């Protein structure tokens, strides 16, 4: 009896083991933990960047076609929203947007962040326009994960400007901070000093820290011309440039520097003398002033979007403005 049971048990064991050998799909795979490099991967693919850029440009085009900036907020934010709304207002008066508002659809380079948090910043450098205007530096920002990337600013690159090198988008670029060190100045300091240079010109104590650029030249030239005119009528004019707090975007270049794009607002106050009225100084100001009643004093608010390259501290280079956009957004008689 015992022998029979042993035999049956052995037979059952043999059958079980044999069946266990068959009909097997293999060992269950375990999810392999993502490598640490995954966190350093770019936040966007080039295809996603193109999709975002296309969506933004479509939004701009639609607002331009409608000459209505109400829908811009979906894809435009920050200083660019003010600039584009102003441009639409001007365009309504002048019969179309100024050519300087053109943004090419093709891009030459994109700088995609690798940061995990928000807000996130992405740069895109476009091609030149069809009428051979200079390239545009587009600055996108995503303020929260539940929102989409929006166009925060556009700077027209200065002719001949040398942009720093960035890693390819497949690798991604680390975003900078306003207080980044190891540079000739922190990004926030660089913006504030540049505002001082714009306001005071060569008289600024920081003038020697910045290379000469076309924005400084233009502002100084126009201010000089207006100054001469105002002086003939015993009038005065003055501009104040102020860096807008927290309106700064930074990406770290591969050579250790920072490419900083920041908003600097300026107020240009012109007071006519001898009982005269102070009038708009340009077609844009006139369009923005509209049917306003002029007084002896006119205050014009400009939005300046400046792109500064802040080199590493040991490079021995000056801070260089590589592009800018300057548009009046408000004209008022005071």
């Amino acid at each position, binding site marked *: 009896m015992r022998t029979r049971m042993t035999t049956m048990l052995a037979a059952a064991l043999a059958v079980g083991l044999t069946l266990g050998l*068959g*009909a097997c799909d293999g060992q269950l795979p375990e999810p*392999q933990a*993502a490598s640490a490099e*995954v966190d350093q991967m770019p936040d966007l693919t080039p295809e996603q960047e193109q999709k975002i850029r296309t969506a933004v440009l479509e939004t701009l085009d639609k607002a331009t076609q409608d000459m209505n900036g109400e829908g811009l907020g979906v894809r435009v934010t920050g200083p660019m929203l003010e600039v584009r709304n102003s441009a639409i207002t001007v365009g309504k008066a002048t019969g179309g947007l100024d050519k300087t508002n053109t943004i090419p659809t093709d891009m030459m380079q994109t700088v995609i962040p690798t940061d995990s948090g928000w807000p996130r910043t992405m740069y895109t450098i476009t091609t030149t326009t069809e009428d051979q205007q200079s390239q545009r530096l587009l600055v996108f920002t*995503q303020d*929260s*994960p539940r*929102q989409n990337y929006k166009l925060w600013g556009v700077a027209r690159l200065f002719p001949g400007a040398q942009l720093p090198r960035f890693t390819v988008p497949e690798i991604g670029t680390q975003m900078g901070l306003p207080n980044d060190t190891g540079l000739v100045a922190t990004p926030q300091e660089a913006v504030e000093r540049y505002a001082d240079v714009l306001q005071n010109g060569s008289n600024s104590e920081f003038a020697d820290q910045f290379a000469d650029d076309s924005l400084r030249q233009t502002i100084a030239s126009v201010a000089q011309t207006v100054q001469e005119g105002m002086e003939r009528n015993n009038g005065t004019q003055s501009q104040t440039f102020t860096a807008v707090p927290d309106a700064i975007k930074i990406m770290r270049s591969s050579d250790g520097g920072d490419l900083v794009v920041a908003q600097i607002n300026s107020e240009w106050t012109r007071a006519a003398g001898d009982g005269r009225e102070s009038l708009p100084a340009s077609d844009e100001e006139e369009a923005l002033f509209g049917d306003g009643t002029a007084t002896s004093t006119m205050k014009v608010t400009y939005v300046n979007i400046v792109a500064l390259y802040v080199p590493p501290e040991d490079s021995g280079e000056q801070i260089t403005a590589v592009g800018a956009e300057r548009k009046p957004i408000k004209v008022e008689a005071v």
Partner: protein
Amino acid sequence: MTVEEREQEEPQVPAAPSRRARIMRFVVTPILGVIAVACIVLGVLNATIWKPDRDITAEASVSGTRYVVTDPGVLGLVDDAVTMTVTGGNAEATVCTAIGSMKDVAGWLSGTPYVRVTGLSEWTVLSTTDAEAQGESLAGDGDVAFADSDMWTSVACDTGGVTVEATDEDSSRVALVDLGEDEASADIAMQWVRQSLPNYALPFYIGGGVSAVLAVLSATVLAMPWGGRRKRETEPEEQPSDGEPTIVDPAARNLVADQLESSDTAEAAADASEDASGDVSDGGDDADADVSDQTSVISQDELMAYFARFAQEDTKSDAAGTQDADASVSTDAAAEPDADDPADETPSPEGLSFSPMPGEPESPAPPAPPVDIPELSFDGLVTMLPQDDEPSAAQSDDVKEGE
């Protein structure tokens, strides 16, 4: 009957197989054979009806949540390409599935509970667990719809359920499912098509082949006695053991030197021969062994000389009337003299003779019968020629028979 005839008539009894040979041939070989057959059968089964499925579909049901997220690595768990199907519990709700990076998904889910798909608990079952994303909810004004987010590399939405195809080669992508409403339920299925299947047949084939080879070896080479093989390897010239005939190569002998030596010691050997005869007659098994170990070797010339001398003696004896041919001969006559045993130094310059066999009465050698040259020469001499591997007992019998 001559020795050769007897040898031909007597059947050679084969040596019984050793215990090792029996075990190898009748135990190990069958076991290895069965193993070989079993392995091959299992290999064939694993290559056919037991072949692993190429399509793997695993499912899971979730409830009480709005978001479902796959862990990193789950999308590419079985193969790089996966098809994910989500069927919502509410057939009217819009279900979306997006593929994105884990950091983007974590940002979207910040402060929100969700269900994790952690992997496979079985080949057909997805394992899930509840979780809550860290941080505070970042939902606010200006938020975009799930399907409109820039963060997803791909997204698909449909009413009631949706199917997406994704690839995840480096565990950098995860799937985020939005069931469209809070506290929702859904069935989730993930399907992979394996491009490379595990080959479970090959190990069985290899095992079967090895077992078959071992079975053949165990039945042949491994069944041979180890000692014999080693002895052949280390001792190419096997030394004869007691009781076996001594094989002497006639070509290696200097018969002239032997003859001279025999002549020098002829006188002393004649005396010793008598003693030796007595010893041999008295001898038991030992003496028998000594005798049987020796095999006389006679060359053709020596044989002819012997015949000639014998004929002369026969003629002389005929002429002289009677002459007693009292010749006590021994098989030791032509053997190599043994210095240790004077009895072996029996000279027999006259020719060959046979020593008494064990068991014969201890008595002086009887007078030699009349010599009959033809009979004596061939029956007796042939037996004196070297015989390979012939048992000593048989040789002794033949010798007696020859007498």
